[in-house]
């Protein structure tokens, strides 16, 4: 037993004992413990094996910078790998497992790798496992990946629920330590809307382990009083257990709240984690400062910890990390830690000070070894002694824990996430936050103010300034009184010279000082290169402890200032955030919204099989009893439409109404064909080009009144066309008097197609819909029997006599039901988008399968849709480009397999007979294909070089995906009724 729970003290609740387990061993801790403090109290210093060399590793820190104490918490699908034991709140039933070891933590076979470490320097695998190349993916990489690593992700479905929420405030305070609490109080009292977020489960930050009194009371009492006051303020929101991980445009901050990571029985109503997007008018970074480790031989031995962490474990958790602690320091902080531990009755083996003569007072009777350095450590699974060297004299200092203190680095991560680089301060021997403008300011230790009184003063002053700036009147409160301050100075020591064994810079990635030397020697001395070459500063801790030392060592090796080396790039996330939290509720049915047609229920009742089409669910076909394949249903539906009548849901098409004296002119410029003289009560097919002359979308344009139009778009581009119109109206032609509005959701639209369509429809409507009264392309308002008003369009996408009836959406199902009922006498059937597609293919009508962004109107056989008379329209000028008018462009043709049993599929390419497939020999491609039940064989639409001149020619359809070649005959793309007699009947 070397680590233990102190008899008294600390902020843990000794009346509430919690049971938990580590690697299967049942243990007990107290409420208020972290997993790390509870492990230490149970003498479990060894917590993991290192990433690369499998060296035994222990707890180093008491916070989120922890590189070593990564464990897997939970089991099965609820496992969270790489959880930092130092921030994991203890709860009853917590189960934790160590990582990257086999068969056990104490005896790890992988540790043999450490023996070979001379051959395993930075980048070793790039050099070692080069040949034969094919073995890299199959052998070397899997082997390396198995040997190296941290926790394992579980592959099971995550049963937790997550969510996101927005928040808005005048001031976001990041960090609930002395500077943050007083800032929140100052701003909250002044009436600002304040959000205070802190990653810890208990607000107070360093106040929770502070020994200096505030206003005559212990510092944590001050913290509790401040929290109580803040809780009572309605304009203040406290977010404990919340890490602000990112700073984004418009002063939006990302934060993750661990809502119930710390409970044994999570509530089903609450998310496990919640991501906050906090829109802050101002933000104050009060994130404190991080103590630096020292880089010396054997510094990764379990038991070598941060000096400040030793204090925190003793003061806040009532835990001694060792019975005899040695301190290695380059500044005052080491002495302070020694005093804290000494006061708790923990023996101090010695204070090793790298400096020559300092005035810092060691506790009574403690030996100070000045101008000295640690060159090695002793012990295996736990440190048992330090080898201290002074002017060539080596001495062994026995101890069972070591506190290292290498000075302070302000935590400025968030301030540097949007491009501004940290600035080196010679005075502070540290990188400090750049000036990033008024939106985000830094206070307290994060601002390089390391004393308690300084933090309180800085936090209050910054919050006061922000309040005034935003028009509030902050009270001039008297600052709380603090005790005697310690001088926070230190002398930089980047590397303790004379290391007798590996001196680790980055514990988590097993990067030691020599790796950085290797990187420099091999030309990777730039700080960003050195990071990639050595992996220093990578992985889950992103070098929170190590980066500054890596920079200092590189500077030392290059003989320059750390200012010249600079830092690597700071990016979100400050600490890792689970994918679940980032996804929030956006999974399963909440992942993307579903759009349902007003006729969805009608289709469902009629047995439709649905297909996803963007956000829509469209009815694909309507299987009937006895039909075994989708083709049987589709063939029946097609034949029935050609012979009798069918109805189809076309509600998903985009519908936009336009109004105004310039509506006709607006549309005339938007579409390539002439629309100015479209008569009232008539519809016309309209083709829209992009500026570059290629087809954008098509649809119908109906003139409902002189200054009132209705256009339809394809389902896919309903939103796109609307945006395009907004752009044209607002940017291109703001002088045109036109207003428009989407009416897509207002109407249920039903296509009724087939030779008996009129007979069916006439049963339902009052109006005369004979060919004379309502000819092809007529449009008008109709009254259904019973009085319901609808809109009727005589348009056809099947080549048959067809109408589209639009009724207010809520009536859609009832009207469709009624059509089916009266249509029964005419052998009506419902048909879906698959039959719709076959019908249009038989008729040679192009869709977006043809308009794929490479196709001009002329390519698609729609050259007549491009008005030569119009002075201008979108796409006109670039349509005349050389290349878009070339004679050998691919043109729309039909294809029929020579052997009628063969099929053709979309995506196949066309080749001249006997030619080898190559880009050069490519003659075109198949854009759509289907089986035509009318013709009894497959048909296809294709784009073929100079295709319209090649009807009758035989061509090879080369389908590499199915490794199949089919001989086909090139033909007119209109397979059924080329004279349009049926459509106009």
């Amino acid at each position, binding site marked *: 037993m070397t680590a233990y729970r102190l008899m008294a003290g600390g902020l843990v609740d000794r009346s509430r004992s919690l049971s938990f387990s580590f690697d299967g061993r049942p243990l007990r801790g107290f409420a208020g413990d972290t997993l790390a403090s509870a492990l230490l109290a149970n003498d479990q210093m060894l917590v993991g094996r290192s990433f690369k060399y499998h060296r035994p590793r222990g707890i180093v820190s008491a916070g989120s910078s922890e590189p070593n104490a990564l464990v897997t918490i939970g089991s099965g699908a609820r496992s969270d790998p790489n959880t930092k034991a130092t921030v994991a709140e203890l709860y009853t039933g917590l189960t934790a497992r160590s990582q990257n070891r086999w068969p056990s933590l104490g005896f790890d076979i992988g540790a043999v790798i450490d023996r070979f470490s001379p051959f395993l320097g930075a980048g070793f695998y790039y050099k070692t496992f080069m040949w034969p190349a094919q073995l890299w993916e199959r052998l070397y990489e899997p082997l390396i990946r198995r040997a190296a690593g941290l926790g394992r992700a579980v592959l099971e479905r995550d049963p937790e629920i997550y*969510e*996101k*929420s*927005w*928040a*808005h405030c005048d001031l976001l305070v990041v960090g609930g330590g002395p500077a943050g609490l007083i800032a929140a109080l100052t701003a909250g009292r002044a009436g600002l*809307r304040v959000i205070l977020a802190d990653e810890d489960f208990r607000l107070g930050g360093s106040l929770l382990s502070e020994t200096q009194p505030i206003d005559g009371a212990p510092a944590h009492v001050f913290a509790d009083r401040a929290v109580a006051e803040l809780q009572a303020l309605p304009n203040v929101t406290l977010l404990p257990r919340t890490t602000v991980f990112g700073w984004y445009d418009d002063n939006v901050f990302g934060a993750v709240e661990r809502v119930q990571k710390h409970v044994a029985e999570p509530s089903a*109503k*609450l998310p496990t984690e919640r991501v906050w*997007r906090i*829109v802050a008018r101002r933000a104050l970074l009060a994130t404190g400062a991080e103590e630096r480790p020292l880089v010396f031989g054997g510094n990764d031995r379990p038991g070598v910890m941060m000096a400040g962490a030793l204090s925190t474990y003793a003061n806040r958790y009532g835990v001694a990390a060792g019975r005899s602690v040695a301190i290695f320091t380059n500044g005052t902080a080491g002495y302070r830690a020694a005093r804290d531990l000494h006061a708790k009755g923990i023996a101090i083996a010695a204070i090793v000070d790298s400096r020559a003569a300092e005035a810092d007072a060691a506790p009574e009777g403690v030996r100070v070894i000045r101008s000295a350095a640690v060159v090695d450590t002793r012990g295996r699974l736990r440190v048992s002694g330090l080898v201290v060297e002074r002017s060539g004299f080596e001495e062994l200092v026995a101890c069972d824990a070591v506190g290292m203190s290498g000075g302070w680095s302000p935590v400025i991560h968030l301030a540097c996430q949007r491009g501004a680089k940290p600035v080196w301060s010679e005075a502070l021997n540290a990188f400090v936050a750049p000036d990033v403008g008024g939106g985000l300011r830094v206070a307290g230790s994060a601002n390089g103010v390391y004393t308690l009184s300084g933090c309180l003063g800085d936090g209050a002053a910054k919050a006061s300034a922000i309040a005034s700036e935003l028009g509030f009147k902050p009270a001039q409160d008297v600052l709380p009184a603090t005790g005697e301050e310690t001088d926070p100075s230190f002398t930089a020591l980047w590397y303790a010279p004379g290391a007798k064994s590996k001196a680790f810079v980055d514990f988590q990635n097993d990067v030691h000082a020599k790796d950085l030397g290797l990187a420099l020697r091999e030309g990777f001395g730039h700080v960003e290169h050195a990071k990639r070459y050595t992996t220093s500063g990578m992985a889950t801790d992103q070098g929170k402890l190590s980066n500054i030392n890596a920079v200092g060592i590189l500077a030392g090796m290059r003989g320059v200032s750390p200012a010249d080396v600079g830092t690597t790039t700071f990016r979100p996330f400050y600490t890792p955030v689970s994918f679940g939290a980032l996804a929030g*509720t*956006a999974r399963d*049915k*909440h992942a*993307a*919204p*579903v*759009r*349902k*047609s*007003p006729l969805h*229920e009608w289709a469902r009742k009629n047995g439709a099989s649905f297909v996803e089409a963007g956000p*829509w669910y469209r009815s694909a076909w309507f299987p009937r009893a006895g039909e075994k394949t989708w083709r049987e249903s589709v063939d029946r539906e097609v034949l029935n439409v050609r012979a009798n009548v069918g109805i189809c849901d076309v509600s998903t098409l985009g519908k936009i*109404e336009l*109004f*105004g004296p310039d509506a006709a002119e607006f549309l005339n410029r938007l579409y390539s064909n002439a629309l100015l003289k479209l008569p009232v009560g008539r519809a016309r097919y309209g083709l829209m080009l992009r500026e570059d002359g290629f087809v954008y979308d098509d649809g119908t344009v109906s003139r409902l009144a002189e200054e*009132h139009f209705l256009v339809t778009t394809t389902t896919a581009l309903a939103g796109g066309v609307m945006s395009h119109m907004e752009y044209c109206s607002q940017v291109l032609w703001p002088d045109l*008097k036109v*207003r*428009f*509005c989407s*009416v*897509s*959701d*207002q*109407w249920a639209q039903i296509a009724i197609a087939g030779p008996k369509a009129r007979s069916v429809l006439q*049963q339902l409507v009052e109006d005369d819909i004979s060919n004379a009264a309502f000819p092809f392309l007529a449009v008008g308002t109709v009254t*259904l*029997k*019973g009085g*319901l008003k609808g809109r009727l369009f005589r348009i056809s996408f099947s080549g048959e006599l067809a109408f589209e009836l639009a*009724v*207010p*959406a*809520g*009536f*859609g*199902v*009832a*009207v469709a039901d*009624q059509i089916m009922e*009266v249509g029964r006498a005419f052998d009506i059937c419902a048909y879906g988008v698959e039959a719709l597609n076959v019908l249009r293919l038989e008729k040679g009508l192009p869709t977006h399968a043809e308009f794929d962004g490479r196709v001009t109107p002329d390519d698609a056989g729609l050259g007549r849709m491009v008005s030569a008379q119009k002075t201008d329209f979108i796409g006109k000028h670039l349509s005349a480009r050389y290349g878009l008018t070339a004679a050998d462009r691919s043109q729309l043709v039909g294809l029929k397999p020579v052997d009628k049993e063969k099929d053709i599929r979309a995506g196949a390419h066309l080749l001249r007979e006997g030619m080898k497939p190559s880009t050069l020999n490519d003659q075109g491609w198949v854009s759509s294909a289907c089986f035509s039940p009318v013709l009894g064989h497959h048909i296809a639409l294709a784009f073929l070089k100079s295709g319209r001149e090649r009807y009758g020619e035989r061509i090879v359809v080369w389908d590499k995906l199915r490794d199949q070649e089919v001989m086909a005959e090139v033909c007119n793309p209109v397979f059924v009724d080329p004279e349009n007699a049926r459509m106009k009947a």
Partner: protein
Amino acid sequence: MIRDYYNRHALDEKLRGAPRPAGVNHLAIAHRQAVAMVLAQAGEEDTVQRALSQTTEFILRFCASGEWLVVSENDTPEGLQRRLDALCAGRAYIVDQSEARVLFRLSGPSTRRILAKGVGLDLHPAAFATGASANALCGHVAVNLARTGDDTFELIAPRSFAESLFDDLMAMGREYDLTAAFAG
């Protein structure tokens, strides 16, 4: 053959079954309402807004410059159309949207916290007072959001998205025991 066609609500399937009592936080869905889009003619935006603001018989929802949604609980769609035509006197185009939109009314002490899970707007009374309205995203769905009281908000959503939005709202309200029913 004369018949009356049944008008089905987009949420008929979702809210089928016996109505459950409304909780403290409640989502009421209007079963019938008249909604119209008013598009002011160029240059007539201010006149139209003044004309529309004079009446208290319906509610005005801002959508875009010169564009408003008008919601009336007492009119039929045709009635609202006539009334608006008379009010605007040819200065605006009126488009019936009664069937295109679904009206969700959210009420209760936790409404702001519920909405914050889907809406990025600042809904603090100082920023979004009673009577304010705006087009906004609620999760993935575009809605027109209005504050109708201290703790009451109204969302007007496209009909085709109504089921998805309903599911999202219920998930957002799970923490606060949100209930839902057609408005009485």
